[in-house]
């Protein structure tokens, strides 16, 4: 498998804190998910300067001007830093290609159910344009009290110094809520998405949080299936100085049984090769080798974070 591992990742991500203060464009603003989450993002202080929804050009949504085409929006409102995409699954590829063609270099794909082969094309284009892509099937990014790029429920979060990286949606919020209740605020939280093919990886976010001055500790929320936890564990051992605490969901799931997330299948889809990869045992062993403490339930995470921070001092 060594050849596979050497293929380069996505374009260079920006440091985490550059997301705060971003000028944001929302694609799919007039569609059900967009209509639901745009007001939430606005109330959180996210600066949404334009929306795009084909056939809704010339209208307004939540006081935001709506355009038919991304390039048209940029012509009118000026450059944007991030596009958040709530479009229907089968139009995601087109919408993302459109955003990249218009020069937007950071995309958050929220919608669930994007065909993986569309993601292959989308990410190929993202690599050649050095575009940073989060998701799909993702709650996006939240920097507490600064910006919401996605669907994270704000009540779970408070500003602080713990970074959360997760493959889940509601479980990310659950972990944030546990930390918040224990008095541990968050510097940033991101859901990279639960699908088999996603844009930004655990490693990229580990690197961002390692460099982020606000972040003192990192919580990595994984789940069974795939091998992103194993890869992340190796990366932590090699490159991450800040303390990391992990949690893995699905440890009691029967083998081969898929719960929702397309990526959460223990047996590898690649023709049953390496069936031990993706199992609970494999992930827990990888974290143990990397000396990353693993919480056995979400409510244990705050204690492990505090212990890790104390140990460091």
């Amino acid at each position, binding site marked *: *498998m060594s050849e*596979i*591992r050497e*293929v380069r990742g996505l374009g260079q991500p920006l440091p985490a804190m550059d997301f705060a203060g971003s000028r944001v464009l929302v694609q799919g603003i007039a569609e*059900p*998910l967009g209509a*639901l989450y745009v007001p939430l993002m606005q109330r959180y202080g996210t600066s949404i300067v334009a929306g795009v929804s084909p056939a809704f050009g010339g209208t307004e949504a939540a006081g935001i001007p709506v355009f038919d085409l991304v390039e048209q929006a940029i012509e009118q409102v000026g450059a944007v830093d991030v596009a958040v995409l*709530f479009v*229907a*699954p*089968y139009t995601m590829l087109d919408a993302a290609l459109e955003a990249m063609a218009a020069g937007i270099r950071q995309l958050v794909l*929220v*919608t*669930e*159910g*994007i*065909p*993986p*082969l569309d993601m*292959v094309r989308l990410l*190929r284009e993202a690599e050649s344009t050095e575009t940073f892509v989060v998701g799909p099937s*993702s*709650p996006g990014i939240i920097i507490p009290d600064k910006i919401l790029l996605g*669907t994270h*429920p704000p*009540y*779970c979060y408070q500003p602080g110094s713990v970074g959360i990286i997760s493959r*889940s*949606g*509601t*479980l990310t*919020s*659950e972990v944030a*809520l546990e930390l918040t209740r224990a008095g541990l605020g968050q510097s940033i939280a991101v859901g990279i998405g*639960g699908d*088999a*093919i*996603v844009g930004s990886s655990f490693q990229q976010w580990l690197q961002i949080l390692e460099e982020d001055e606000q972040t003192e500790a990192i919580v990595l929320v994984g*789940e069974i299936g795939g*091998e*992103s936890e194993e*890869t992340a564990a190796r990366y932590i051992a090699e490159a991450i100085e800040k303390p990391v605490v992990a949690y893995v*969901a*699905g440890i*009691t*799931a029967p083998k081969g049984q898929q*719960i*929702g*997330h*397309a990526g*959460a299948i223990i047996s590898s*889809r*690649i*023709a*049953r*090769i*390496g069936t031990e990869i993706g199992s609970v045992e494999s992930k827990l062993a990888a974290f143990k080798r990397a000396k990353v403490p693993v919480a056995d*339930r*979400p*409510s244990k995470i705050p204690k492990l974070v505090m212990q890790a921070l104390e140990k460091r001092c």
Partner: protein
Amino acid sequence: MDLLEYQAKELFRQQGIPVLPSQRIDRPTELKGLTIPFPVVLKSQVYTSARGKMGGIRFVENTIDAIAAAQAIFHLPIMGKYPKVLLAEAKYNAEREFYIAVALDSATRRPVLLGSQFGGVEVEAKLSKISQVVVTQEFSPYYARRLALKMGLEGKLLSAVTDIVEKMYRLFTERDLDLVEINPLAVSSNQELMALDGKIVVNDAAIGRQPELASLVATIPDQAVPHALTCSINLVEREGNIGVLCNGAGLTMATLDLLQKSKGKAANFVDLGGDYRHCCPPSVLQDRLKQAFDLITQEKSVKVVLVNILGGVASCLQVAEAIAGFLKWQSGQQVPFVVRLAGDQFHSARGLLAAMDVPVFESIDEAVLEAVKRSAAPATQSVSPPHGASQPAQTGNSPLILASA
């Protein structure tokens, strides 16, 4: 979702991948009208790969033998499943058996071509012999040729394998597949290739734009249509006595883990999905909750329902109203609920449900313990509420032991 062998071969045939003449058999008597000349191979159409070792593949020389063999195969469970269909196929004399596949690799986020000269039933024991080529950019036949070379092929076989890999790749992308596998790809004495067995995994998310695959899948008996297709409520059955409802895959897995840690056993569970399904945004949460409760409580073994909803746009009160509405609508014997909520209007939600004797917790751990406690308690004899906070009457003998209190 997996296709059965005969369906995969139909797609191979359409794509120009060589397959043997074959006939689908729904009943043993259909073998009287067999159009393929004997000798014939009868193959059980099940999803398990190791069917040959279990007697699911038989060679027959004449009609009488064929009918007897078909009857035997129809009555032979493979990993607990009986075949609904058999495939009758011409016999082929393979000199060698190759392995070829096209799959998605989540590490590189690219399709990957896989091939080996050592295919057949032992392929898994020879994993190190499988060559790989990642399709990093737009596909072109040279990727397939690269695989054939890596497999150690040359001359006529190199061209023939390249051609088949190319066709498999086209099939893979045109039909939005997760996996196309030919094992074995038989090589005859005159170096001709034949796909003797095939496996295709259809991508659930893409099936909505693959109408032909959707109708093919619909013809599979007992095959559940993937929920991405309809956004319908998907209930998963287990062996225990606690019904579980959560929102989001990660939270569902975490809740089931906690339940098991506390020695509780799920009877079934529903994951309502995260907050970003295009076809069912949180605005329709209340309707979906009612449907899910209905499904969960239809299972007679469910002694308690554990609800764990972490609210996003939907408030705790909206969830509580859906629960209250369901409990009022559900007359007679009621299954008690234990509820964990987080989000806006938590206290109003708790107040509303407290009036119906439904305990509401802020912490998952506490809700899980309470659900396990109630699932282990002896069955209540009362035919209507109250249940909830008051201790149920200690009447029946519970087979379960109180795990934790």
